[in-house]
C-alpha cells in the first residue's frame, strides 16, 4: 500500500511541476529583450577576450604586424557588430556607458 501511495505522490508532484509554468504564465524569468541583451553581452565578452588574445599574441611575438592587423581588424569588426546589436536591443546600454 505504501509504495502505491508513494508512486501516486511522485506522479502528482511531477504533474504539478509540469503544469506550473502553464498556469503561472507571467513567470519570473527575464523578458525576451533582457534575455537577448544578456546573451549578446556574453558574446561581446568573448569577442573582447579574443581581441585581447590577439594583442597578447602580437606582444609575445606570435604574430607578425601584418597578421596582427588583419586578425585584429576581423575580431574588432565582430565585436563592433555585436555591440551595435546589443545597443539596438537595449538603447539604455549605450546611454549608461
Amino acid at each position, binding site marked *: 500500500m505504501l509504495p502505491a501511495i508513494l508512486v501516486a505522490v511522485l506522479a502528482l508532484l511531477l504533474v504539478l511541476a509540469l503544469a506550473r509554468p502553464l498556469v503561472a504564465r507571467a513567470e519570473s*524569468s527575464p523578458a525576451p529583450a533582457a534575455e537577448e541583451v544578456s546573451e549578446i553581452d556574453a558574446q561581446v*565578452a568573448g569577442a573582447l577576450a*579574443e581581441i585581447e588574445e590577439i594583442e597578447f599574441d602580437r606582444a*609575445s611575438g606570435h604574430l607578425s604586424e601584418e597578421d596582427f592587423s588583419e586578425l585584429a581588424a576581423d575580431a574588432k569588426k565582430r*565585436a563592433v557588430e555585436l555591440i551595435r546589436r546589443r545597443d539596438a536591443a537595449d538603447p539604455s546600454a549605450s546611454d549608461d*556607458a
Partner: protein
Amino acid sequence: MSLIGRAALLLALGAAVYAIVMAIAGLRSGRRDWIASSRSAVYGTFGMTSVGIVTLWAALLTDRFELRSVAEYSNAALEPWFKVSALWGSQAGSLLLWAWLLTAFAALVVARNRSTHRELMPVVIITLMVIGVFFLGLLSFVTSPFEVLAVVPDDGRGLNPLLQNPYMVSHPPLLYLGYVGLAVPFAFAMAALVTGRLDTAWIGAVRRWLILAWTFLGFGIILGSRWAYEELGWGGYWAWDPVENAAFMPWLVATALLHSVMVQERRGMLKVWNMSLVVLTFTLALFGTFLTRSGIIASVHAFGESTLGPWFLAFIAAVIITGTTLILMRLDELRSVHRLESFISREAVFLFNNLLLVGLAFAVFWGTIFPVISEAARGSRITVGEGYYDQIAVPIGVALLILTGIGPLISWRRASGAQLLRRFAEPVFVALVAAILMLLFTSAWDNWVAGLVFTASVFVAMSVIGEFLRGARTIHALGGVSLTGAMTRLVARNRRRYGGYVVHLGVVLLFIGFAGSTAFTQSGDLLLDPGERADVGGLTFVNEKTVRDANDNRMMVGAQLGVFDGEERISTLTPAINFYTASQQRSTEIAIDTGPRRDIYVTLVGLNEADQVRASVFINPLVMWLWVAGVLIVIGALISSLPLPGRRVREATVPSSVGAGRAAG
C-alpha cells in the same frame, strides 16, 4: 521497491516525452510558457530518474535479493561501497547510471542557460530528451533494473571479484560522465544546425562541457588502466581490449575536436569538420556503451550476451543519419570564412593533429570490429592482436607528441623562416643535447623508439615551458609586475590556453611512462621453497613466509617475499590470492612496489601445502609517471575549464572611428 523503481522510471520516460512535445510546440508557436514547461519536464525527468537510482541503491544496501540486479551482483557480506558500485556491475544498473547522468546533465544545461541561447535551447532540450527517451525506454521495457525473481534466494551471488577494487568504484562512473557529457556538445551542435545559428555561439556554449567530458573520459581511461594493472596480474595496463578501445575512440576524436574548434573560433575555418567531429564523438560514445553492453565482442570488461545490440545499433544509425542529413542541409552556410594560407601555420598543425587523431581512432575502430566483420564474411572470428595496434599507434603517437611541441611555437596564418628559427632553436637544441646525454650515459637509446620518444618529450616540455616564460616576460614587460606575479596573471587571464599547456606537460609524462614501461620491462617466473631465493631483473626475491587471513566475504592466502638489491632489502611484497565465499570465485591480489624509476610487480600464481611459492615478477620502468600524468592532465583541464573573471562588457561601446559613439571599452 520494484514498484517504486519501475514507476519512477516510467514517470521519467513520460516527462521526457512531454519535454520533447512541449519544446517542439513551443518552438513552432513561440509560446514561452510551453518552453518553460518543457524545461520543468527536464527537471522532472531528472527527479524521477533520481528516485529510480536511489531506489536501486537502497535495494542493494538493504540486500533486497528479490531483485535480479541485487541477487546476481551483490551479497549480504559485501562491503557497503562495493554494494554501491554493484549498481553498475549489472547491465540494467549501468544503463540506469547512464540515464541518470544524462538527465542530470540535461537539468544542469537547462538551469545554466535559462536566459541564454534562447533560440538553441528548445532544440537542445529535444535532443537530450530524445537520448533520454532511448535509455529510459530500454530501462522500462527491455532490461529493467527492478526485475523481480520468481524464487528469492537467501543470499546473492556476489559481485565479480575483479570488480571488488577501489578503482572499479570510480572508473565506470567517470567513463560514463565522459560518454554522457559528450551528449551536450552534440545537442548544441544539432540545435545550431536546426536553427541555422552557425556562428561560434554554440561552440562557446559547449566548450566547457567538452573539456569536462574529455577530462572525465580521459581520467576514467587512466583509472581503468590502473585497475587493469593492479587487478588482472599480467604486468601491463593497456592491452587494446575492445572495451578499452571503446572509451579510447571517443576520447581521441574529442581531443581532435578540442583543437579544431579553436581554428573555427580564430579563423572561421573547419566548420563542417567540427560539426562532423561532434556527431562522430557522440556516435562513438554510444558505440562504446554498445560494445560493453551488447556482448558482441568478448572482453574482460564486457557484460556478456544481451538483447540490447539491435536497439543500440538502431539508435546509433539514427544519430548518424540525423547528424549527417543536417550537416548536408547546411553545407552552404558552413563554408569556411578563410582558407588555409600556409602549411607552416598553427591551423595547419591543428589540421595535421586532427587527421592523425581521427586516423588513429579509425584504425582502433577497425581493429575492434574486425572480429565481427571477419565472422560475418568468412564464418570464423579473427581477433586483431596487439601488434596491429602498436604498429599504427606508435608512429602516430610519436608524430602527435612532436606536433604537441610544434603547435605552441608556430603562428596563426603563416610562419616566417626567421620566426621559426627564433622559436625552435632553443627547444630543439636542448632536445638534441638531452638525446646525446641519454645516448652516452643511459640505455634509453637501446630501443630507438623509446629514445625518440624521450627526445621528443624534452622538445615538447621545453616548447611548453618556453611559452610560459615568454608569456610571463611579456606581461612583466607590459604591466610592471614581478615575474612570479606575471606567471600567475598569465594563467589567470588565459586559462584555456595555459591550462591546455599544463595538459600538454601531462601528455609528455604520459609518453615517458609509455615508452619506459613498454620498451624496458623485464620479467621472470619464480618457484621458491620457504627461505629460498632467486633473481629477476637484477633483484633478488626471497620466500620469507606464508600469510593467511579471512573475513565473512573472503579468505586470503599470500606469500611474503623479501626483495633485495644486492644485500640491501629494498622492499617486502605480499602477493596473494582471494577466495570469495559467495561467488566461489578467486582473484589474485597483485603486490606492487612503486617508485619514480620502476615498479616491482609480483603476481602470486600458486602456493602449495609445503608453502612453495610460484610467482610472476615484472620490473616495469617509469610506470608511476603514467598516473602522475593523469593527475596533471586533470589539473590542466580543470584550469582550462574555469570561467574567466567577469568582464565589464556594459562599458564596451563602438569606437567613433567606425561610426558611432565613444571609444571601445
